[in-house]
């Protein structure tokens, strides 16, 4: 059973119940017939709308959860207490209420636009950012059934939408008519160009092994062996490039608050600023989810399959796969929080160096290695000529890199 059929059944049951109640109350005639016809026409649209709203709400809840985890964990990593606002007062809670307080504060704050800013583009920037970030959530399945869409090329779709954000960042940085925002937008573009290509190349090894762009297929292939063990180099490249893509701390050059006031977000206030922050965390969730799906076996259980006979009858075969997915995503996110607490920000020239001179050769090396292993393994039924050519090309690139390492150093 997947999400659509579940939601469809729920909607049918609810609407059928309401209509039946109305008929029982004596409402018959052409109006009732029209309503029934209308429902029949809109049945699938309503289902899709409900599923999309469900995915949206889950995404926003994930943002809240991740913000809370980040604030608590980064406090403890710095040996201090984090936010402790609770229902009973300050210092008596877990700090979960603080996020809602912040949201209310940002909602009621005045929304200012600089006088000389290009006001339409200025308002469009965060909208594009949030829209493109939420669109990634559509492509991410939580399990075989729990997915808003299970596209054939879901991975390509997710990456394409994922790579859209620097455009919005650049637009808003340019339109605010401020030196800091402009520098932030430029840095975002630079960073995206230098890290997007290793990001995509690191994924190609996984795609070669799984033989599919469909995210559920990629997860199901990893039932016995996670790709992080088969593709360690690709995972390192993916992690670094992903942190750079979601602009978190070692690579948060576009919003370097020590150098540029708040980077490209400088002129934003109120709900626009909240949108910018929210989009950052949605992208953080999407990046971590992609990492888990591609390298950590997605919703596959990390413990071997088992069944426990429950005393009241029935069997327990481990928690639902969505829970494993959530736990893995949050663990990966906690690693990113740890990295944020520990590391400092790199310079602009360093991020370009890392992207072009370190990650790109590593990703190409990983592709060469994967192709070689696939070509020489007996499992794969491939044309040796094709495999040989496919091996020689990346190996040639790698050889060039190794031969003229000084060019890259």
């Amino acid at each position, binding site marked *: 059973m997947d999400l659509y059929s579940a939601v469809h059944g729920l909607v049918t049951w609810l609407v059928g119940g309401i209509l039946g109640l109305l008929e029982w109350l004596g409402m018959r005639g052409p109006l009732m017939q029209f309503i029934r016809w209308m429902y029949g026409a809109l049945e699938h649209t309503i289902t899709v709308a409900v599923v999309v709203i469900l995915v949206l709400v889950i995404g926003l809840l994930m943002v809240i959860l991740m913000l809370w985890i980040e604030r608590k*964990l980064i*406090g*403890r*990593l*710095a*040996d*201090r*207490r984090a936010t*402790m606002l609770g229902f009973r007062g*300050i*210092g008596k809670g877990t700090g979960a209420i603080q996020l809602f307080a912040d949201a209310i504060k940002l909602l009621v704050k005045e929304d200012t636009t600089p006088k000389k800013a290009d006001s339409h583009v200025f308002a469009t920037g965060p909208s594009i950012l949030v829209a493109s970030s939420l669109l990634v959530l559509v492509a991410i399945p939580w399990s075989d059934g729990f997915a808003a869409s299970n596209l054939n090329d879901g991975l390509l779709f997710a990456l394409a939408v994922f790579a859209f954000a620097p455009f919005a960042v650049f637009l808003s940085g340019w339109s605010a008519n401020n030196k800091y925002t402009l520098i932030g937008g430029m840095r975002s573009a630079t960073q995206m160009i230098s890290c997007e290509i290793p990001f995509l190349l690191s994924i190609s090894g996984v795609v070669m092994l799984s033989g599919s762009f469909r995210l559920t297929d990629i997860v199901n292939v990893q039932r016995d062996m996670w790709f992080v063990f088969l593709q360690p180099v690709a995972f390192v490249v993916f992690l670094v490039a992903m942190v750079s893509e979601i602009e978190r701390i070692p690579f948060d050059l576009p919003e370097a608050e020590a150098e540029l006031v708040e980077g490209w977000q400088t002129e934003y206030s109120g709900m626009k600023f909240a949108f910018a922050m929210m989009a950052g965390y949605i992208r953080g969730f999407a990046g971590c989810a992609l990492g888990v799906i591609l390298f950590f076996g997605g919703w596959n259980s990390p413990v071997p399959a088992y069944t426990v006979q429950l005393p009241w009858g029935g069997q327990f075969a481990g928690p639902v796969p969505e829970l494993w997915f959530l736990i893995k995503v949050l663990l990966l996110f906690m690693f990113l929080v*740890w*990295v944020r*607490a*520990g*590391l*400092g920000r790199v310079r602009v020239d360093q991020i370009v160096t890392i992207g072009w001179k370190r990650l790109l050769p590593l990703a190409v090396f990983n592709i060469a290695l994967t192709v070689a292993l696939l070509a020489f393994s007996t499992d794969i039924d491939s044309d040796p000529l094709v495999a040989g050519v496919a091996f020689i090309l990346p190996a040639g690139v790698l050889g060039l890199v190794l031969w003229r390492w000084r060019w890259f150093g």
Partner: protein
Amino acid sequence: MEMEVVRVIARPLWVTLKYLMRGLWRRPVTVLYPFEKIKLPFQWRGLHQLDDEKCTGCGACSRVCPNICIDIVQVAEKKKRPSIDIGRCLFCGYCVDACPFDAIHMTGNYELAVFTRQELVLSPEALMKVEDVREGTIDEEMWKRVYGDEPIPEWPPLPEKPSKGKKDAAKKDEAARPPEGAAPAAAAGRAREAAK
């Protein structure tokens, strides 16, 4: 160079992880300020306290104040006392040093926020009413973390709040003191000459 990169990445990660692990069985260094308070050191320079019995209104504090925030005001006929503009005060403690009769003390009060600027100018009457409240506890765990096995020193008792009945005692104290009326000013003059 590669080794340096590894060190730059690995070391801060290890340090933060260490603090996280430590936080599992010890509490973090920060205190929840309005609810928990750290015991102040006894040398703490907070709000001033004026001893009406000892003060003679000589104005030594006003002259020595580097921020010119002490005004000598007339409180009664033939009675002048200092009033202090806390908004300008930098809590250097010169007035305490300069006072020939030991009439000004600094207390541990540091919560001095008020709603108007006028309230920051404390009249002599208000300064006389200031109580030395040093609440808060010394955090033994924090002391151990900073000073190791060094024992926690005994806090000396707070200066006694003069009351009306202690007038004679104050007089006696004054008599016991060697009469050095303008000594601090003279000392300052000497120091200035030495600097030249």
